[in-house]
């Protein structure tokens, strides 16, 4: 392996394979390397292994074989405690936001500090004043300045606000890497742009590596530094958005560009009616 590339690699996977049971592997023999500050979009329709690949990067899914290295640490070689520590510096956001509905916005954000919380404090749901301060700062950074919202229950917020809370929860971890699993799929069109702008802005300012799964071609082209297309558990395209021409899209997804566009229009309509 080339030493030069090694030094810059923030996330690195080699010969990564994950098979669930006896079924055909969800991802097979994937080797990739992501630089510090790089904005990567994993592109492809659902069921091509984007989600599995993403979850292998923080070992929410344990790969069947292969190596995952984040910030120089090999996740598979870490102790149980070491893995929790490593995860603390890998932020993650989700399509369904995954907030605790019955907890306050502030509490939800502070959950990002669970990795550092003592068991006794956890038992009594007692975060420190510093954690509260960090949470407020994270919320402001995520675009929720209205302090009136902070003590409200998370399920009283709108979709866009919920994703901002989830982003604040991730920011409070002071992550080096952001994993984002279809973060805009449950949002309407206006919200999508706001949330994408926010993530891109945070990543640029802090020099964070972002790995995001998406199925919207246009969004991927607008925001990504590098697009990786997956099909059938393997990488079918890896390059800057400029190289992902319509012709390449048709080859990679094995359908016409009109069909790809049409699917996305339908999905956008579905998300808007929700």
């Amino acid at each position, binding site marked *: 392996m080339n030493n030069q590339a090694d030094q810059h690699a923030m996330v690195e996977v080699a010969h990564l394979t994950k098979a669930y049971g006896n079924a055909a592997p969800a991802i097979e023999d994937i080797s990739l390397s992501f630089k510090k500050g790089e904005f990567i979009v994993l592109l492809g329709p659902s069921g091509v292994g984007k989600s599995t690949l993403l979850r292998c990067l*923080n070992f*929410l899914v344990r790969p069947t074989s292969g190596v995952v290295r984040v910030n120089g640490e090999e996740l598979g070689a870490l102790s149980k405690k070491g893995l*929790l*520590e*490593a*995860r*603390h510096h*890998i*932020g*993650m956001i*989700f399509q*369904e936001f*995954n*907030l*605790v*509905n*019955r*907890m306050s916005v502030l509490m939800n954000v502070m*959950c*990002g500090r*669970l*990795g550092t*919380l003592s*068991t006794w404090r*956890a*038992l009594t*749901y007692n975060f420190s004043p510093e954690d509260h301060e960090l949470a407020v700062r994270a919320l402001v950074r995520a675009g929720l300045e209205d302090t009136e919202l902070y003590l409200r229950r998370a399920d009283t917020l709108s979709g866009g606000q919920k994703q901002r809370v*989830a982003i604040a*929860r*991730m920011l409070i*971890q002071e992550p080096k890497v952001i*994993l984002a699993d279809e973060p805009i799929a449950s949002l309407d069109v206006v919200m999508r742009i706001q949330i994408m702008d926010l993530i891109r802005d945070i990543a640029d300012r802090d020099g964070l590596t972002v790995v995001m799964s998406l199925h919207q071609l246009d969004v991927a082209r607008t925001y990504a530094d590098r697009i990786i297309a997956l099909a059938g558990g393997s990488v079918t395209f890896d390059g800057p958005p400029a190289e992902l021409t319509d012709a390449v899209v048709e080859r990679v997804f094995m359908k016409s560009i009109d069909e790809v566009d049409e699917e996305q229009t339908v999905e956008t309509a579905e998300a808007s009616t929700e």
Partner: protein
Amino acid sequence: MTTAIASGVLDAVMEERRVSRRQYMIIGMVVLAAALWSAWGTEFNIPKLVNGLPMIYDLGGRMLPPDFTILEDLMGPMVETLEMALLGTTIPIFFALPLAFLCAVNTTPHPLVSVVTRLIVGTFRTVPELIWAMVLVTAVGLGPFPGVLALTLHSIGGLGKFYYEAIESADPGVMEAMEAAGASRFKIIWFGVMPNVLPVMMSSTLFYWEYNNRASTVLGLVGAGGIGLALTHALQDFRYPEVVTCLILIVLILVVIDRISAFLRGRII
């Protein structure tokens, strides 16, 4: 064109209706056959009931008027009954909750642990509290104490099941988010599961409190204290006016408790 499609749809609807009607007919016949078989097995006999009516009338006459002079003496046993129910619901919480986390498939440390603990919880629940009480009276003697133990054992099973079902309904996405943030197993449960399932757990605990109040009134039948004991004694000595007083008191108290429980459950959700 459209009429052709419409008539096709209509045919399909009619066909489906025919099929479902036939299915209901079969189900109805099976239930009826089972009921007749059971009536025969249990010597169900309406003339016998009609012939017994004067006896029931006679019994009613001997019961009335209720003897309210014993009301003061019944207060002690009644309070004892309520105390049994309260202890028999609160003690099992501390056993049912940890067991539930071992039972629930999404929080169990190992699938095998889940199977074993479910078996334990299921056994506690399947044995009726009256049977537990009979066994425990033999073991620790007469009185309310074996009653409390009996309610506790049965409720560990009942609450355990309610609790693990609540835990299993927890949103896996939230748990995943906690795990991704580097939370330990305990913290995932405490932050990712408990806040959302606590109201359901409180509600089912109240339900069990209600249930245990009912159950504790009859535990006296096997010598496990409470108003049931007073009822049994009165029944054995043919003091029917006292029996009726006991029954009235029991019904009144249970109605009040149901109301309290319903009110509290309404406040939770």
